Every structure is written in structure tokens, then in C-alpha cells.
């Protein structure tokens, strides 16, 4: 090994220089790179380290770290260096440089090990091919996920070490392998990469046993793999043990059952196989989607004649060497993996895709390969690089005179064709703004006012959250000088926990999905904010609302100004495009005691807090009611809808009659309220048209509409099933144009009619009859004020209608009808245009746009409020996983709430060691415990997996130290 390294110093210097040139180009402007799910950790490494260092983090409403703890050493090291004052972009450049060198050195070792007689220049070709091939170009560097990059960099070196140990029959190689995997532990934050690495090693191991077929070697190989595997588990104990615990937890099971099913995985596999699984693309290592439309403009060049031919030429060289050197063991080894990789990469496509599909549906472990092209591509790239180098060398064998020419041609082709997107920096661009601007690409320059806002927030304390508005889904686009698009990065931009996007995490998404709507519609929104421990609202006007279909921040700020007049929120700070508004009724609710619950059947919603007066302090679902019967309660029943609305392609169905059923457990009086009755001032009479029938009796409206709610008075429900029918009205026609029109249009002349009294969260439908009296087909859309515009062109998003010329020259009208959901926009138009340049005349009749009033029935019963004082609670937060609680003057049972996302692994333990077992969901997202002890006492809230993580860290540290000591001692003894 020593000789191997020492002899190749100049080669390694060359690799380091080339990698240095690459990162110098990428980071020459002094900006960090960031996009997609990788966000921008290098902006604030300390903050990102927090996400991975503990078993529980305060990100979102709190979440488990699960497998991401495997990346903790990397982020710890980088954050420590950043503390010395080194800028994030330098650290990111250094990281990328290190990864390229690792990949290069590993590929050098692997190629030399398998083809010892291969000249250095061909080995260099293997390195360059591994660096720049289309798989690493798209699946690794353009994909821009750090665990992908690290896995890509680690694979050659790890495989080299493993094979080297087998070949030299050296157990020490297994130890070095384990230590190397620690350096690249970031790669193991993905289950797939763990699976792929061990699959590759298991095959390699088996291949060598079968190839040598000697008893002595087989015994060694068995001991070798056991040692390697055991040492790997010990070195990585800190994340392996918690991961096993995590996959068995109740929350994980819920998450998996919600989002991952065999049917869903099979559907994904088949869709992706059809898209990416064509052999004519795979054999060029090409991601079809990327190179044919989904990628940036430059990617299309790879689809043209010459680059296409060159890519096939590379594969042809690989196939040629397979044919030529088929009797060579190393070629056979690489070839089997290469073709296995191709077979998996094409997924369920032919030939023999059904075999893969058969095992895919029966072996759930294989379902992590539901995106087979992306995942197995790492293995294909790994084995094709040495084969490619050997292939070029083999071509040179035919003409000694042309050796240099052949090498030079391949060298230039790899460097110029494959290397061009890397050396030009284009590999860090995408089709989405601002990444589609080649001068920006993935570069990100966070404005300095974020730092100022972050510092200000930190000065306000560490016991609250804030909500960012406007609030969207995971994706966000920022309009900075070097802008950003990808997963919303506020968790990195701010050290204070915040709710800045919605994502599909159980409990979290149920709270966040309707939060902005609640803020807009409910004057008492501060009640909701208090349950979430939200002290500030942050409005941001540097985001691209059209790219993400968000509400206009100015409208939100105007609304906040109104709330300021009412006294519920107060503007307290502004940092250029960020404004902060304080929730004036906020009190620290990190940990608090409650004894006046609002119970909801079947499942509580965060908005339920609006139904009780300010004394009610916790939301619970009725399944916990039997535990708590001595407290004052509000009970809310949400009747179950009999017939679900069917949504087809996002177009809502507009049935006018809805039936609900409700099961009353005992005889009780409930107030029937219709919620969500959004009416403009001039539409008040519509409320009278809402027909409500309770058990075949027509209910009459009692009182005025208040805050979009109508009361129908008290109803007595005897035990058993009851029925509520609601006939929903529609608004009048919301267009101010005649119902019968003749419009003249063409491709460039769009005709639009404004929709009046627009509700940004409403459901609409349009209907009209039409005849195209002259001209072409036409399109109709419901154009909203925040619709996406790119290059000054409106991007058509569903739903839109292309209406055909069936009616041309016809005397009868064709009827068109469509439904729309408003997308948080401030206004909308019904827009028509002809699909061609020729003048088109359309006769429209009975044109109308109506909004559907969509009331939601709710039944509420309230007990009289008992005056029961709460105990006094103080707490100390030791870290994100542990709180010490001091309770004084508890005289009755009470509910202790921890405002972190519910997880069954949170434990409450009294100071005498007694565990409180009555642990349930509180406030629709948080943890609640029923504490039945009285007097003064202490208790501890702890996230149990942290203990396992701590134990695992010790095991890992000791194993790593033992491994290093063993190597040093061996080296000294050898000397």
C-alpha cells in the first residue's frame, strides 16, 4: 500500500490540481452553491450541525433526526472550522475538492488493482470518466444532494480497500475499510446507499470465493467479511442502533403506512421505468428526462448527432473490451456488475422486466430501488470507468503507432464533451429560475439583512417559534442577487425555530396546511399562534410568489396592519425586506399545564381552539376523554361526510347537496354551526338560501353570520346515528359582462374578464355555450394574479381547457364547464384566446362564473366552566431532547403539554423514576401527559432515542480508537 501510494505522487498531484481548477471555477465569485433538497447548509453550518447532532431537532415543529445523524461528524467538523472565521463558500469548495480527490484516488486504486499493467495515462482516463460521465453529471452533481456526492466519492475507495484486503488476505484492510467508512459516513444517511454498498461488497466477496475455490481462501474470506461487517457496525453504532429503534417506532410506522405502499412504489417504478428505462439511453448513461427537456437548455446538445455518437462510442469501447478480454477475471467481475446495473436501471422495462417486478413486489427491501436508474447508476458508473480505460488501452493494442493518437482522442473527448459542463460550471444550472440563468446557476448570496434579522430574533429569547408568511409548500424561490430555488431554507437562515413551509410529516402537515388561510380569515388567529408557541410573524417580500403561487406579501402586511389596530399583532422590527410582527398575547408555551380541554371527534384541528373562550387551553381528540372526566370541557363533533367529493385532476366536483352522518354516544344538546361560509357584504342574502336538514327537519338560521359562521341553535341528539343534509348555494354570476358575447381573438390577443369578489381560497366553476364561427381552436383558463410567468409568457398550469372546433360551422352550441380552486391569489380573470394566429370569432352564450359556498357543519356542546387553578410550572431546557420540569401546588390532575411534535418516544418520568404512561396527542401536533400526582414535585421530559444515540457514540468512539491503535501498533511492530 505504502509503495503503491509513494510511487504515484505525481499522479495524485495532477488529480488534486484538476480538482482544484474545477472548484476554483465554481467558487470564483465567492458564493456558496445550493438548490433542491440540499438547501444551503454552508450558509450556517452550526445551525445545520444542530439538525444532525441530536436525536430530536427543533426544525419544523420538532422532528426526529433518524438516519441524518450519520452525517453528524461531517457537519461537526465543518462547523468547527467555520467558527474560526472561514467563509462557507471556502469550506464548500474544500469539501467538493476533497470529494473529487477521493473519487480520483479511489478510482486510481481500483483500476490499478484490477488492471495492474494498465499504463498511468489510461488510469487517468478512468478517473476522468468517473468524474465526468453523464451519470455523475446528472445524478450526482446536478442533482446536488450531499449524500449522493459523498457516496459517489466513497464508492471507489471503499471497493478498492475491500478487494485489496481480499487479494492480499489482510484483515487490517477490513479495519482500514471501517475507518474509511467513518470518514464518508455522510453517505449512509440514505438507506439505499447502505443497501447498495453491502450488495456490491457481498457480490464481490462471493465472486472471489467462487473464482478461487480454495478451502483456505474461503475460510479467510468468511472471517474477513465477518470482521469487516462487525467493525463497520461498531464504528457506525451511533447511527445504526438509533436507526433500528427509529424504524420500529410508532411514528415511523404511521409515516410509512401513510406515504409508502407497495402499490405506490410499483406505480413509481413503472412510471420511471417507462421514462428512464430505455436501453438506448441507459447504455449512454443518459438520464432521458434531463437530456430531453427537463434539464437546462445546454443539456439538449447531448442529444444531437455528434455527442450522441461519442457517448455510444464510449459504451462501445466498454463492450469491446468485454468481448476482447472476456477470459480475464477482473473483466468478468466488472462486466457482471455492469450488466446487473443495466438490468436494474431499466426497472420493469423489457426485456425481462417482469422478473424484476416480481421480486420488487415481494421483497420490500427492493422497493428502495423504486427509482432504479438514479440509484443503481452509482454502481454502473463505478464499474464502467475501469472498463472504459481498459477498453481504450485495448484499442491501442491494434496499432502501436496509433496508441498516442487513440489515447489523445479519447482524452480530449472525455475532457471536452463530458467535462465541458463541469469546467464551464453549467453542471450547476437547471431549468427553473433562477438556476436557469447561467450567470447565477446554483450560486446563492444570502442578503445581509437575514443575518441582522436572525441576530435580532436570537436576542428575543429561545423559547418561541415564528411563522413565515406567505406560507407555501416545500419549494421556495428567493429573488436575491444570486437567488435560490429549492426546499425552503428558513431553518438555516434563522437559528430560531420557525414554520416556513408545509411538508408531508404526520401531525405537522395537518397543522400547517390551513395555517395561512386561518390567519387571513380569523381575527382571533393569535389563539392558534399561541397553541403553536408562536411569538412572531415574519413577512418576506423577497420571494417569487409567481413561481410558487403564493399570496402577495403586501396583502398579508396590509392585513397585519389591520390586526395591529385591533391589538393582536404589533410590528416590532424591519430588516429591509423582512418585517416582524409580535403576537401581543404570546406567553411561553414550550412546556405548560392545562386543565380545560376542547375535545373533538373524530380528530381535532388546530382551528378548534377558536370555538372555546380564552380559558380553554388544550385541544384533545375524544379517544383521550375517558382519561380526563373531571375537567371543564368543550366537545366538538365533525359530522362525517357520506359521499366524498371526487377530485379529478384538481378540478373540484360541485355537488350541491352534501350528506353527513353523526353518531351520538349519549343524549346531549349540541349547537349546530356552519363554518366556512365566506360571503361578501353584498352576498348576505345567500346565507338564507343554505338549506340545512337535521334528521329530516329543516333547520332555521339563528342569528347573524359572524366570522364566516352561522348558528342554527341547539339540537338534541339521542344516542344513535343522525343525518345532516346541506344544500349548498352558489354566488351570483361574478362576471360583469353580458352572459351572451361575441369575442374576436387570436394567439396574441387574449380576451379576459375579471372575476368580482374573488376569494383566494374559494372554489369556482365556469360554464358557457360556444360556437367557433370562424378561426381555430381556443383555450380557456382561469388566470390568477400569481400564475407563473417565464420569459414574459404565462406558463399554463392545470386546470386549463383546450376547446376544439367541433362547433365550427355548426348551428348548435357546445357546452363547456370546468371547476377551479383559487390558489391564494389576489384576483383572477376568465381568459380566452385562439390557439393560432388567424383571427377567430367565438360566440359565447350563458357565460357565468360562480363561487360555491362550501359550509362545514360542526356540533358543539359546552360544560359550565369550573374554576380549577393550575399548578405553577417552571422548566429548564438542557438540549433539544431533555427538559427538567418543576411543578408546584398541583392539587388536581392536569395535562402537561410539551409543544414539540408528537412522538411516542418522548417520555415523562417523575423524580422517583415512575414513568407517566398516559401520553397522548395534544393541540393536534404536540405531546400531552395526564399528570395525576399532587403537591410539589419534579419530572423529566426526555426523547428516549437520545440515550441510545449517546451509548452508540461511545461504542463508535471506542471502536474507532481501537481500530486506529491496532493499525499503529501493527505498523510499529512491522518496522
Amino acid at each position: 500500500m505504502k509503495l503503491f501510494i509513494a510511487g504515484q505522487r505525481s499522479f495524485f498531484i495532477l488529480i488534486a490540481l484538476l480538482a482544484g481548477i474545477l472548484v476554483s471555477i465554481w467558487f470564483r465569485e465567492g458564493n456558496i452553491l445550493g438548490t433542491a433538497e440540499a438547501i444551503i447548509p454552508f450558509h450556517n453550518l452550526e445551525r445545520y450541525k444542530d439538525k444532525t447532532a441530536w436525536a430530536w431537532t427543533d426544525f419544523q415543529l420538532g422532528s426526529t433526526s433518524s438516519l441524518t445523524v450519520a452525517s453528524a461528524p461531517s457537519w461537526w467538523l465543518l462547523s468547527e472550522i467555520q467558527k474560526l472565521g472561514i467563509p462557507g463558500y471556502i469550506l464548500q469548495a474544500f469539501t467538493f475538492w476533497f470529494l473529487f480527490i477521493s473519487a480520483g484516488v479511489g478510482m486510481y486504486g481500483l483500476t490499478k488493482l484490477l488492471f495492474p499493467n494498465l499504463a498511468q495515462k489510461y488510469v487517468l482516463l478512468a478517473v476522468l470518466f468517473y468524474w465526468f460521465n453523464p451519470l455523475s453529471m446528472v445524478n450526482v452533481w446536478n442533482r446536488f444532494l450531499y449524500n449522493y456526492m459523498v457516496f459517489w466519492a466513497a464508492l471507489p475507495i471503499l471497493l478498492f480497500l475491500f478487494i485489496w484486503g481480499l487479494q492480499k488476505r489482510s484483515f487490517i484492510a477490513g479495519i482500514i475499510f471501517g475507518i474509511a467508512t467513518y470518514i464518508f459516513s455522510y453517505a449512509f444517511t440514505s438507506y439505499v446507499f447502505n443497501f447498495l454498498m453491502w450488495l456490491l461488497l457481498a457480490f464481490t466477496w462471493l465472486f472471489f470465493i467462487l473464482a478461487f475455490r480454495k478451502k483456505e481462501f474461503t475460510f479467510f474470506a468468511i472471517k474477513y467479511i465477518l470482521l469487516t461487517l462487525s467493525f463497520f457496525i461498531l464504528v457506525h453504532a451511533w447511527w445504526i442502533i438509533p436507526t433500528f429503534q427509529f424504524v420500529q417506532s410508532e411514528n415511523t410506522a404511521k409515516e410509512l403506512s401513510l406515504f409508502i405502499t407497495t402499490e405506490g412504489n410499483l406505480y413509481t417504478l413503472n412510471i420511471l421505468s417507462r421514462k428512464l428505462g430505455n436501453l438506448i439511453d441507459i447504455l449512454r448513461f443518459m438520464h432521458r428526462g434531463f437530456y430531453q427537456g427537463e434539464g437546462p437548455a445546454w443539456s439538449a446538445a447531448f442529444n444531437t448527432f455528434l455527442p450522441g455518437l461519442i457517448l455510444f462510442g464510449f459504451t462501445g469501447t466498454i463492450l469491446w473490451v468485454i468481448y476482447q478480454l472476456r477470459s480475464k477475471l477482473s473483466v468478468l467481475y466488472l462486466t457482471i456488475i455492469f450488466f446487473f446495473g443495466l438490468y436494474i436501471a431499466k426497472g420493469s422495462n423489457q426485456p425481462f422486466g417482469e422478473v424484476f417486478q416480481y421480486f420488487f413486489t415481494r421483497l420490500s427491501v427492493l422497493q428502495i430501488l423504486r427509482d432504479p436508474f438514479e440509484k443503481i447508476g452509482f454502481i454502473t458508473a463505478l464499474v464502467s470507468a475501469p472498463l472504459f480505460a481498459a477498453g481504450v488501452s485495448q484499442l491501442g493494442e491494434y496499432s502501436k503507432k496509433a496508441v498516442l493518437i487513440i489515447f489523445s482522442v479519447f482524452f480530449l473527448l472525455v475532457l471536452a464533451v463530458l467535462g465541458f459542463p463541469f469546467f464551464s460550471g453549467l453542471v450547476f444550472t437547471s431549468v427553473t429560475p433562477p438556476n436557469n440563468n447561467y450567470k447565477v446557476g446554483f450560486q446563492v448570496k444570502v442578503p445581509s439583512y437575514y443575518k441582522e434579522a436572525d441576530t435580532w430574533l436570537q436576542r428575543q429569547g429561545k423559547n418561541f417559534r415564528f411563522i413565515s408568511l406567505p406560507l407555501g409548500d416545500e419549494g421556495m424561490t428567493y429573488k436575491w442577487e444570486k437567488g435560490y430555488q429549492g426546499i425552503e431554507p428558513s431553518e438555516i437562515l434563522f437559528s430560531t425555530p420557525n414554520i416556513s413551509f408545509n411538508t408531508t410529516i404526520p401531525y405537522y402537515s395537518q397543522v400547517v396546511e390551513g395555517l395561512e388561510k386561518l390567519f387571513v380569515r380569523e381575527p382571533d388567529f393569535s389563539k392558534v399562534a399561541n397553541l403553536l408557541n408562536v411569538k412572531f410573524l415574519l413577512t418576506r417580500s423577497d420571494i417569487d410568489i409567481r413561481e410558487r403561487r403564493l399570496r402577495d406579501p403586501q396583502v398579508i402586511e396590509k392585513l397585519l396592519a389591520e390586526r395591529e389596530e385591533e391589538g393582536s399583532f404589533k410590528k416590532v422590527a424591519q430588516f429591509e425586506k423582512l418585517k416582524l410582527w409580535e403576537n401581543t398575547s404570546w406567553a411561553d408555551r414550550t412546556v405548560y399545564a392545562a386543565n380545560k380541554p376542547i375535545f373533538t371527534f373524530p380528530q381535532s384541528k388546530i382551528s378548534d381552539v377558536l370555538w372555546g373562550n380564552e380559558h380553554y387551553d388544550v385541544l384533545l381528540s375524544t379517544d383521550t376523554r375517558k382519561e380526563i372526566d373531571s375537567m371543564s370541557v368543550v366537545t366538538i363533533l365533525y359530522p362525517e361526510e357520506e359521499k366524498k367529493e371526487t377530485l379529478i385532476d384538481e378540478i373540484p366536483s360541485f355537488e350541491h347537496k352534501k350528506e353527513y352522518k353523526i353518531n351520538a354516544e349519549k343524549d346531549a344538546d349540541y349547537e349546530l354551526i356552519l363554518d366556512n361560509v365566506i360571503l361578501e357584504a353584498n352576498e348576505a342574502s345567500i346565507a338564507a338560501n343554505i338549506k340545512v336538514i337535521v334528521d329530516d327537519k329543516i333547520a332555521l338560521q339563528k342569528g347573524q353570520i359572524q366570522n364566516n359562521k352561522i348558528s342554527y341553535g341547539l339540537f338534541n341528539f339521542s344516542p344513535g346515528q343522525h343525518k345532516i343534509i346541506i344544500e349548498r348555494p352558489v354566488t351570483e354570476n361574478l362576471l360583469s359582462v353580458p352572459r351572451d358575447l361575441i369575442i374576436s381573438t387570436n394567439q396574441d390577443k387574449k380576451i379576459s374578464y375579471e372575476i368580482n369578489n374573488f376569494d383566494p381560497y374559494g372554489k369556482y366553476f365556469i360554464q358557457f355555450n360556444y360556437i367557433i364561427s370562424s378561426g381555430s381552436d381556443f383555450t380557456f383558463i382561469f388566470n390568477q394574479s400569481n400564475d407563473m410567468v417565464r420569459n414574459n409568457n404565462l406558463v399554463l398550469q392545470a386546470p386549463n381547457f383546450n376547446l376544439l372546433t367541433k362547433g365550427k360551422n355548426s348551428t348548435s352550441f357546445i357546452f363547456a364547464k370546468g371547476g377551479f380552486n383559487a390558489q391564494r391569489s389576489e384576483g383572477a380573470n376568465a381568459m380566452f384566446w385562439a390557439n393560432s394566429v388567424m383571427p377567430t370569432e367565438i360566440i359565447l352564450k350563458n357565460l357565468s362564473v360562480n363561487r360555491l359556498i362550501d359550509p362545514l357543519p360542526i356540533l358543539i356542546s359546552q360544560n359550565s366552566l369550573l374554576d380549577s387553578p393550575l399548578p405553577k410550572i417552571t422548566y429548564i431546557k438542557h438540549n433539544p431532547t431533555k427538559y427538567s420540569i418543576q411543578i408546584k401546588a398541583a392539587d388536581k390532575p392536569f395535562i402537561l403539554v410539551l409543544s414539540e411534535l408528537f412522538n411516542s418516544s418522548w417520555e415523562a418520568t417523575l423524580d422517583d423514576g415512575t414513568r407517566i404512561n398516559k401520553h397522548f396527542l395534544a393541540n393536534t401536533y404536540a405531546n400531552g401527559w395526564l399528570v395525576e400526582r399532587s403537591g410539589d414535585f419534579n419530572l423529566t421530559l426526555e426523547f428516549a432515542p437520545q440515550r441510545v444515540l449517546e451509548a452508540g457514540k461511545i461504542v463508535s468512539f471506542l471502536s474507532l480508537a481501537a481500530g486506529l491503535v491496532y493499525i499503529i501498533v501493527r505498523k510499529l511492530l512491522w518496522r
Partner: protein
Amino acid sequence: MEIIYWAILAVWIIVIWTLKKKASFSMKVALGFFVLAAVLTVLTLRNLAEPLMRVSFIGWLIGILQAVWEYIRNSE
């Protein structure tokens, strides 16, 4: 259409079995199909190229298995 690839596999195996063809035969034929499919692809005839590439792939699978078998036999 799936059955056609199984049929090609069966015919290919029968041919190499009865004519006692070696791995080089399968690989050479597969390489031929590969070149043909590659040319058709760069000429934008993807629909024609893909089935040919699949046939080439079958040829390679058989060729590799034959090569492994030949390696084992030669090393005994």
C-alpha cells in the same frame, strides 16, 4: 410483446447449444446489434433502435454467462 424477448432468449440458447457456439459468438452478434441500434438512435429513429438494443442486451447476458462458464471450465 413481452413474450418475444423470452422467445429470442430461447432461440439464442438453442442456437448456441446446437451449434456449440462460444461466448465470442453471442458477444459478437450482440455487439452488432448494439452498433445498429446506436446508429438508429443518433439518426433519431428511437422506436426502431430500442427493440434492437434489447436484443443486443439479451445477447450480452447470454455471452457473459457463457464467458463465465468458459472461465470456470478452463480454470479446472
